[in-house]
């Protein structure tokens, strides 16, 4: 063998071995986590990582106190994600994958992944939805988190052909009693569900019942979640001769007297119409054991909001009419109306009876107190509506609070400060409203701040996405504690640590995903000394 040939052999070997052996890494590594959304649960912050078909739960390690990551696999093609009403679980609906010939990725059925953020580390379980050939992209969770309902969102479905009136009811309970997912096809008069509503538990003639209301553009359907095999009841909103159908804008419920089973009611308002509809669910002989009795009332103006309220004259359907700066109370039994003139054109109302402290503790539920807000002038602020005086002296039933701003949002405060509300405005200030003494504490801020009430109700966080500053306002004392992070923040979440102590997780998301974690001192203030900085959070692997 000549030296030249020998050199060629060695060179060839040198070139061939690396090329033959090199393996590419997962494509996930090259994808920036720009599309990663964050969800706050009770004990964890969950980052959706669709590029890696997983979610990553961030929580404090019980042993080290450091931020720990738990990677939990989801299905492919996540179509929607939502936090459950209790705030402890995240529901991830994935469409799966339909493999074609030669496809390296195997077939995968749609599935619902439930991430439990109340455990440490976070856990998950999957519910197989193989009864679906195509994914449904709408997901609604009932307030008790006993059921999930899948439906086709209008215009957003990726399926080739979808029956928009097909629902899949998923029993979220565990154990042997859990029922398999069940498909229900609603009878349609041409419409399709636009939203799903879960009323509170209603005492119906057939017993306490969890209903599902499927609201469409021309009717709504009542379906028993306890037994979906019972025939649904569809309420058409126009008679058969009508050319157009009124479009429902709001549907409200009232269980009536807890000792009665024939007085549950549903109230409906319509887009652009001055009429409201009330339905009483009365005993009937059909399989459901009830049937709706319908009343329609003209309230003289287009209502912007409706609610069932208890007045000194009995149950009424309250309707706000900002065009006339008034409210109209409808007696659902007689359909008689009474008008209350308001000091401003309020467009929204919230019932604050339990927090306003008008009834002594332990006393039977008395007349309601409503908070009126979202007026069209800055002088409107908010007003309390004492419905205990609505029948006799309606003109004396309104009490305004001196807030010179248009209140565009009312946030509930849970836990220890449940008598407070946080009011956001269209100007550079927000307010802490004390329902018990009806005072409002103004807090000045930059325009456009985002407010977030802590799960414990101890404080409200104010921050500006993309900014460096954040502030905690102690809701009990009004004391403000300002913090600053080193790089622009995207969102923040207060979670419960291993010992239940609060922990603040500030997410920073330009480039990769970073986090700054703060603990709290004994006074309940954020503790700067406890700050810990974490980077490249979604790079833990293997992916």
């Amino acid at each position: 063998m000549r030296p030249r040939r020998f050199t060629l052999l060695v060179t060839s070997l040198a070139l061939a071995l690396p090329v033959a052996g090199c393996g590419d890494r997962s494509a996930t590594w090259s994808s920036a986590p720009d599309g990663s959304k964050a969800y706050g649960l009770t004990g964890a912050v969950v980052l959706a990582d669709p590029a890696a078909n997983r979610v990553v739960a961030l929580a404090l390690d019980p042993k080290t106190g450091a931020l720990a990551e738990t990677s939990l696999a989801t299905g492919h093609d996540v179509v929607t994600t939502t936090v459950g009403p209790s705030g402890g679980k995240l529901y991830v609906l994935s469409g799966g994958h339909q493999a074609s010939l030669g496809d390296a990725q195997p077939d995968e059925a749609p599935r619902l992944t439930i991430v439990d953020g109340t455990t440490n580390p976070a856990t998950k379980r999957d519910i197989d939805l193989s009864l679906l050939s195509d994914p449904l992209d709408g997901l609604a969770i009932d307030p008790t988190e006993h059921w999930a309902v899948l439906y086709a969102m209008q215009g957003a479905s990726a399926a080739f052909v979808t029956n928009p009136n097909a629902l899949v009811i998923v029993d979220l309970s565990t154990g042997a009693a859990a029922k398999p997912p069940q498909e229900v096809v609603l009878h349609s008069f041409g419409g399709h569900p636009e939203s799903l509503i879960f009323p509170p538990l209603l005492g119906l003639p057939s017993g306490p019942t969890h209903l599902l209301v499927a609201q469409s553009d021309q009717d709504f359907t009542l379906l028993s979640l306890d037994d979906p095999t019972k025939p649904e009841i569809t309420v058409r909103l126009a008679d058969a001769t009508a050319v157009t159908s009124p479009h429902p804008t709001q549907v409200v419920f009232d269980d009536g007297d807890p000792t009665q089973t024939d007085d549950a009611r549903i109230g409906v308002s319509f887009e652009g119409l001055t009429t409201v509809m009330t339905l009483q669910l009365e005993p009937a002989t059909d399989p459901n054991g009830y049937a709706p009795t319908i009343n329609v009332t003209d309230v003289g103006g287009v209502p912007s909001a409706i609610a069932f309220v208890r007045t000194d004259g009995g149950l009424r359907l309250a309707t706000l009419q900002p065009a006339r700066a008034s409210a109209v109370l409808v007696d659902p039994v007689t359909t008689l109306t009474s008008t209350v003139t308001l000091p401003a054109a309020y467009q929204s109302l919230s019932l604050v009876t339990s927090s306003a402290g008008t009834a002594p503790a332990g006393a039977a539920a008395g007349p309601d107190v409503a908070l009126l807000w979202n007026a069209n002038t800055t002088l409107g602020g908010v007003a309390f509506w004492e419905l205990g005086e609505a029948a006799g002296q309606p003109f004396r039933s309104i009490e305004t609070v001196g807030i010179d701003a248009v209140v565009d949002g009312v946030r509930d405060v849970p836990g220890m400060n449940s008598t407070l509300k946080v009011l956001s405005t269209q100007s550079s200030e927000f307010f802490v409203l004390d329902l018990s003494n009806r005072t409002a504490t103004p807090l000045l801020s930059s325009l456009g701040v985002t407010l977030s009430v802590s799960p414990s109700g101890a404080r409200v966080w104010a921050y500006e996405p993309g900014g460096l500053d954040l502030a905690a306002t102690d809701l009990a004392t009004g004391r403000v504690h300002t913090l600053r992070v080193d790089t622009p923040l995207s969102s923040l979440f207060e979670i419960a640590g291993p010992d239940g102590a609060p922990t603040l997780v500030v997410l920073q998301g330009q480039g990769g995903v970073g986090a700054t974690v703060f603990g709290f001192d004994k006074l309940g203030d954020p503790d700067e000394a406890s700050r810990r900085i974490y980077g490249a959070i979604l790079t833990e692997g293997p992916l």
Partner: protein
Amino acid sequence: MKTRRTRKTRRMAQPALLAAALVSIVGGVAQAHDDLAPAIEQAADPAATARGPGRWRVSVGGRSSLYRSAGYDAFSSDDAFGQFSATATATVLAGARLSTAVGALWEDGASSSTARGAESSLSLGRLGVVLEERFAPRPWAYAFVRVAPAWLRGKASIDDTAIAAPLETTFSTLGVDGSVGVAGRVNPGRGKVGVWIMGDGGYGWARAQPMALSPALPSADRDKAGVTTLAALAPSGVFLRFSLALSY
């Protein structure tokens, strides 16, 4: 007769040298020297017989390794890791065709990539001892077996702009390489200085290193650095080394 006897003696010495080299791999350099007295007595003078590989040799080149470790994915888009490689050896035992060399090895390299939108890099250096047994069937070519225990030092960093400082970590560990290779002289003639091209391939092993990266904050803020834990990095895998060498 005298010539025939000398050749026979050399043939007998070659297996003995090979056996001695294997013992030195297992038992370490000091023990090999201690135990080699009989073989050395039978070997010829290295200076007189180093016509092939030569007595002194330095080489520089490149090493390409394949790291299939999951911990490497954050620092490279594939499994290849390239390093500069430099070796210096001296022949300590030499026969007609077999010779034994010892020396030192230094290799250094880096890889960079992006990891979920953040710039990432890994540098890895290796400083080791070379034990090499050579077989030279021709004056211009020889094959060799090499064992190289080494000290490895690495530095990994991820520059995530989401936080104020890059994440970094360093580590060091012991490892060992084993390889076989061939070398060929490219300058013609039988001059004292030889120019060689050589290649060897084998497997390098080092213990997997936990990759716990934390922000490189100023010392006053060091206690604020949280730890991001990646998959462990095992700098182990097959490799190929390609070098240019000078012998004397």
